[in-house]
């Protein structure tokens, strides 16, 4: 091995990349050349010193300045850092909007699904209050108070008259063709 070959293999030797035969040849050269051995130690020391050099860190406001730069350059009104506070995955603004929409939907749905002829209790109460005349009101003097309130009637207004029911019974009027 000559000097040029030796120098070409220095990094491979230090990083244990040489084959066994090459390594033996290299070490034999080192034994014969003390200055070569010194050179290896010196390179090793430099490498070690470089690895342990003081590591720098960016200043604490690095990210803030970067984000300000991004907003300036791109005219963005929002920060690239999204808000950490969310409600079921929604931001506070969107969560309130969604809540409002859900409430509105439930209210509208309730109007649609109320059975016909059976108004909501609140509507029934209002209607009753409006229909009951009050004597203190002078405009209601001529209202016929003799008319009994349906609610006070003895018979259930909903129940059907048995005579009517009979008249609706068509079973005796029906004749089969064979009869």
């Amino acid at each position, binding site marked *: 091995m000559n000097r040029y070959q030796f*120098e*070409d293999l*220095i*990094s*491979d030797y230090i990083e244990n990349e040489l084959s066994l035969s090459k390594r033996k040849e290299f070490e034999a050269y080192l034994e014969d050349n003390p200055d070569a051995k010194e*050179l290896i130690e*010196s*390179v090793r*020391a*430099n*490498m070690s*010193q*470089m*690895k342990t*050099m*003081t*590591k*720098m*860190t*960016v*200043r604490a406001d*690095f*990210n803030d*300045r*970067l984000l300000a*730069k*991004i907003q300036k*350059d791109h005219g963005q009104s929002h920060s*690239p*850092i*999204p808000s950490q506070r969310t409600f079921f995955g929604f931001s506070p603004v969107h969560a309130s909007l969604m809540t409002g929409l859900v409430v509105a939907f439930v209210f509208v749905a309730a109007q649609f699904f109320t059975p016909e002829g059976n108004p909501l209790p609140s509507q029934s109460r209002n209607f009753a209050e409006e229909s009951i005349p009050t004597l203190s009101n002078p405009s209601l003097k001529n209202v016929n108070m003799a008319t009994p309130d349906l609610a006070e009637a003895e018979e259930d207004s909903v129940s059907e008259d048995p005579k009517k029911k009979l008249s609706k019974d068509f079973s005796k009027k029906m004749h089969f063709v064979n009869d």
Partner: protein
Amino acid sequence: MSLDKQKSPFVYTDEQLISRFQAGDERAYIELVNRYRDRLINFVYQFLGDFEQSEDVVQDTMLKLYEKKHYYREIAKFSTWIYTIARNLANTELRKRKRRKTTLLSHMSREEKEYELPAIQPETGQEVQNEFAEKRIQKAIQELPEHFKTVIILRDIQELSYDDISSIVGVPLGTVKSRINRARLQLQADLKDLR
């Protein structure tokens, strides 16, 4: 399941993070910035030798990452891509300096004379000696030819693999190994009086 496994949180790879960022997750961008800002400033500082300017270059690198996120393709490692951007921006900054003829290197060489004169006094503390040695090494690195400087910084300071360095500088693996070896020998010659 071991306790260690329970404690260790799932960590995204750089490639997963850039992929998420490309899909619109800006928290992934912040995570990438946090991962690379210090590594890059140590890299760029070796070229420029000035902290403030190095920080500006790292900021510009991160800005490029934000603007050009869709240029990244997963055929390369994210680290090689970001180091390439930083290296190109640092080189641009160096060229600007040369044009202005107010390079920091000439400024530093005047400053360095202060270090050279007193040498290492017996009463000098270990900390001061280390600081002195670091300054000398940094100066020696900055004075290396460009093609040696980049590879030696990436290998011996940033501790990247030969393959990654080959991707960053865009030269074959064998050339990278040869350059690193030559750069180490040149540094050793320049720093002979330090030992």
